[in-house]
């Protein structure tokens, strides 16, 4: 069964550093998403991406965040200057139609 692949599975970074989280969506999917989940809390929508541009973003997705699809297969989330409160699980998802598929997530720890 096709999967959404995320790398790395866990990343530790120092406050103020830039991180790039990577995702390979399912190949024939056209809609891509990033969500985050702070430990023990609900899943929160960050951004959706379609046709090589952002289609919607939440209040969380401020200027320190950016997304891109650099090579037609990868979908990346960049956090420019990480803060302690960015520590969370970040999930990528993709869909084509009704049902989306989530990746296994990247656990980001900012120290």
């Amino acid at each position, binding site marked *: 069964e096709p999967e959404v692949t995320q790398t790395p599975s866990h990343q530790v970074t120092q406050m103020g550093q830039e991180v790039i989280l990577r995702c390979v969506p399912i190949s024939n999917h056209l809609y891509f998403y990033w969500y985050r989940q702070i430990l023990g809390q609900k899943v929160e929508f960050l*951004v959706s991406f379609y046709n090589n541009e952002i289609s919607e973003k939440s209040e969380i997705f401020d200027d320190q965040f950016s997304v891109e699809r650099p090579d037609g297969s990868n979908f990346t989330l960049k956090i420019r200057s990480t803060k302690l409160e960015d520590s969370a699980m970040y999930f990528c998802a993709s869909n084509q139609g009704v049902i989306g598929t989530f990746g296994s997530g990247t656990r980001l720890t900012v120290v």
Partner: protein
Amino acid sequence: ELKVEQNPLFLSMQEGKNYTIYCNYSTTSDRLYWYRQDPGKSLESLFVLLSNGAVKQEGRLMASLDTKARLSTLHITAAVHDLSATYFCAVDMSADGLTFGKGTHLIIQP
């Protein structure tokens, strides 16, 4: 702003019992999803409900949707330990992102 509320947020029950998790949402929506999440793991899609009165069943889980009441339920029949997990409902307003409830942490004890 769309709000999605689940209750209960925490549920401890015995094997063999039945129980229902409720998901209320604040505005009209096209789609409602139920996901399961095991600790430290990703979200596993359980059900997608697309219309008023939709009912779907998979094993001991059954989900229903009442769009007029803006309510979905996830019913657990004769619970078994393997169903212990956190269950999230999520509502989709359009082709864009999902709005999740806070989740129901379910513990099923022998």
